[in-house]
């Protein structure tokens, strides 16, 4: 049995549903799940694919065709709610499809549900969600974002997530799966609810590298509805034995398991005959403050539209529009969102803007310059994703903010990054990530393939995980 056919067979669908329910009672990765939703009949859009005549795209279409998949609840799917993990949009049903959904519709992939997430994507483990608490299928005492948990539990073969500062790669690595953050502007943001517009990008999570690559090939490309998209260049670099991987040396604040995984994986690359080179990145400690300053500033404007006037939560018993807006926002936003809006408002106010926002923009430019100059001496970078393994529920210390420093680099610079399973340490998965120059996603997939061959057996599935084959044969 394959994923592509699961929804068309009544018996299999029943067993699949049982499997999903079994997991969902434990991990709560979905906010909405509906197997009876079929992809709409295809129209003219299919011609786009045919006309592209790119063999990778054709293969991708065949692989993904008919697959069920999950969607983070900040990406619009017509008829599904679009809660963004917030009380503000708890009952808001999307009247339209994001461009990525339209593109996957053309191969008749089926969005079967919407995943729990941090409120307006502010976090990496859904712990700020106002609607549910999701557990990591590797260890139910630990937290996870819904997309990664659902994929790691085998509920869906892939999920579409969003990555603003690492929210695809971090949960993916903490659940032991792949997470791709594409080049900024390579995938349309139309239909992705904005957190911070200059960072946001839609990404892909899956246990299978080929699925990540195929889905990316299907959703990338220019979109007239998103000015920041560009046509994806057809020719990209390929990995060769001469390729050099850069890595960070010295104490970069990693926990013991992550430190070990980092070393082991670099050794694998070396053993396979690739060049590895220790590089320095002096601005590393500025990544988190710069990211927070700019992302919060952008979020303070992006989230201003939620005011109870046109849709979403509306406070009752107010007697003026101004009071209505104030009370609505006070009642429906959670603490993390309020904190970031306040922070963003602060760094933009007159008198402070020069000191914080403008300064952060200048450092961002320097970080981009530094990354670009690194790519003159190495082809890829290999970096940690998260300094520790998955945090326990409500572990405030574990969840402190400096943890975006490895992931937000790619968002600040708009470059692609792919987090990959790098081993199991103390029974928990550790992930690392490859970073490449803009539009060089192919390098990432090829590099991850090298590691996959070496450590596939070293990263077993989550306990209780079943393949779709196992799910379907279980009841017979």
């Amino acid at each position: 049995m394959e994923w592509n056919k699961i929804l068309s067979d009544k018996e299999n669908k029943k067993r699949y549903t049982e499997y999903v329910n079994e997991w969902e009672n434990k991990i709560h990765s979905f906010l909405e799940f509906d197997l009876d939703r079929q992809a709409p009949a295809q129209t003219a859009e299919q011609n786009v694919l045919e006309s592209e005549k790119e063999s990778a795209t054709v293969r991708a279409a065949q692989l993904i065709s008919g697959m069920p998949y999950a969607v983070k609840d900040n990406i619009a799917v017509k008829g599904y709610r679009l809660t963004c993990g917030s009380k503000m949009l708890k009952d808001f049903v999307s009247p339209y499809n994001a461009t990525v959904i339209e593109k996957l519709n053309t191969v008749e992939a089926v969005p079967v549900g919407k995943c729990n997430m941090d409120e307006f994507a502010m976090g990496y483990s859904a712990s700020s969600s106002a609607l549910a608490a999701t557990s990591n299928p590797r260890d139910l005492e630990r937290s996870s974002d819904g997309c990664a948990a659902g994929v790691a539990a085998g509920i869906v073969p892939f999920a579409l997530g969003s990555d603003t500062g690492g929210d695809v790669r971090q949960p993916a690595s903490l659940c032991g799966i792949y997470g791709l953050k594409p080049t900024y502007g390579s995938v349309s943001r139309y239909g992705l609810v904005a957190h911070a517009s200059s960072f946001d990008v839609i990404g892909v999570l899956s246990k299978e590298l080929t699925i990540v690559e195929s889905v990316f090939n299907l959703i990338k490309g220019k979109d007239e509805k998103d000015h920041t998209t560009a046509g994806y260049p057809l020719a990209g670099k390929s990995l060769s034995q001469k390729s050099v991987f850069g890595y960070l040396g010295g104490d970069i604040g990693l926990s013991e398991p992550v430190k070990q995984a980092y070393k082991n994986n670099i050794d694998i690359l070396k053993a396979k005959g690739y060049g590895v080179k220790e590089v320095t990145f002096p601005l590393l400690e500025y990544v988190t403050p710069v990211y927070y300053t700019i992302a919060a500033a952008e979020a303070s404007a992006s989230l201003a539209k939620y005011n109870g006037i046109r849709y979403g939560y509306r406070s009752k018993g107010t007697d003026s529009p101004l009071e209505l807006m104030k009370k609505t926002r006070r009642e429906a936003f959670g603490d993390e969102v309020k904190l970031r809006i306040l922070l963003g408002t602060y760094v933009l106010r007159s008198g402070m803007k020069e000191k914080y926002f403008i300064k952060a923009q200048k450092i961002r430019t320097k970080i981009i310059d530094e990354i670009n100059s690194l790519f003159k001496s190495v082809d890829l970078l290999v970096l940690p994703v998260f300094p520790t393994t998955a945090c326990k529920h409500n572990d405030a210390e574990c969840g402190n903010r400096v943890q975006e420093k490895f992931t937000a680099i790619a968002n600040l610079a708009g470059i692609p990054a792919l987090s990959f399973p790098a081993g199991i340490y103390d029974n928990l998965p550790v992930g690392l990530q490859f970073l490449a120059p803009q539009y060089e996603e192919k390098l990432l997939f090829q590099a991850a393939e090298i590691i996959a061959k070496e450590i596939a057996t070293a990263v077993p599935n989550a306990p209780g995980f079943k393949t779709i084959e196992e799910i379907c044969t279980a009841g017979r």
Partner: protein
Amino acid sequence: MDKTIFETFIGLEIHIQLTTKTKIFCGCKNSFGDPPNTNICLGCIGYPGVLPVLNKEAVKKACLLCLAMNCKLNEKTFFERKNYFYPDLPNNYQLTQFELPFGVEGYVDTALPDGSIKRVRIHEAHLEEDAGKLMHEQNISMCDFNRAGTPLLEVVTKPDFKTGEEVEAFLLNFRRIIRYLGVSDGNMEEGSMRCDANVSINYIGKGLGRKVEIKNLNSSRHVRLAIHHEEQRQAKLIKAGETIVQETRLWNDDKKRTESMRSKEDANDYRYFPDTDIPPYIITKEFVSELNSMLVELPLTRRNRFISEYNLLLDSAEFLTEEKDKADYFEKACKEGADPQNAAAWIKGDVTKVLNREKMEILSSPLSIERFITLLDFVGKGKINGQTAKKVLDIIITENKNPEDIVRENDWEQVDDSGSLMPVVEKVLAENSTAVNQIKSGDMKPVGFLIGQVMKLSGGKADPKKVKDLVMERISAL
């Protein structure tokens, strides 16, 4: 206000709604007066996940006006988010330009009523989106988002105006300019052109005073009145030794005075920062040359040319160049052979009168250039007299007919041969002996009456000059 003690400084902020087919950031229709919330899409009402897509036509029209105002175009511009909460603002931030607007450092020349030319410097001009509208009914408020996303060009002048009259003349000229360019209809009553005035006064030679912003000015007349009122109010305060509060005031047209709306302390901190949904816009050389080819001769230049080229009086030239269509019509008629003086007189007089009555525009009316020239020709050659020509004009416009057909069908061709007129003259003279005697004794007053009688009997077709000659000839022979 005593102008020997004080001087006034006035600067304007003018918002112009650009007449584009679609809105600035989406494909919705950009039109005025439709039922509420009919020209809206998900973007117009700030739905999550929808992105702005910049309308090139709006950019073109904005930059065209910048060039017409002699502005420099910034090579690279971008949009910024201006943050404030208001129920009719879909995203609760307005996309506008702040640091790098499209146009900077321009000027506009205006002819003042005394004949002098006033040059006003343009500080900058930037493109932005309009907000929706709030409507209040008893104790409920409603939002109409049809207007949300209408492209607006905000033009900011330097404080170069000295009087309300200068401002009024400028606004009339400015309105003509934007209509000439076809970038906006410039209707202040409907709000497609809105003007705020910054007014300050100070003792002569002391430089700018503390400025007060006046809003709610719905016509150029209101602007002038509000400035006058504000000058008086501020002068009185200064004379009494009080300081002017820097604030925003509203013009109350019923009470003919400005009223405080909010002081500077209550002003919003807009927290401008670059919007990254729309990448920076680069103005290329090709774009600028395309714009240059779209520029037209502006009203003031054209007026002066009409005076020198067609030998028109200032008054007529001013009238003809008010609207581009009218000026174009006039020039085309002249090119086709019409006498400029004659054409100007007709357009300024009866043509405009009839068109206004019929609520028609000159270019789209049944009075084609060809018909107009035929009409002028008939009069010039004496085929019909002036009075008949007016009737013919009326019929051309109201019934969409050719002048030659009208004259023929009504048998209006002028009669000027003595043979057919003399019997009528003799009849009239015989019936009005009192008048005839009066004239014979030297009192010429009844001549007009007698001519009128002959005209009446001839059905208006007689040539009045000929009739007069015949009447005088006949009386002197008696």
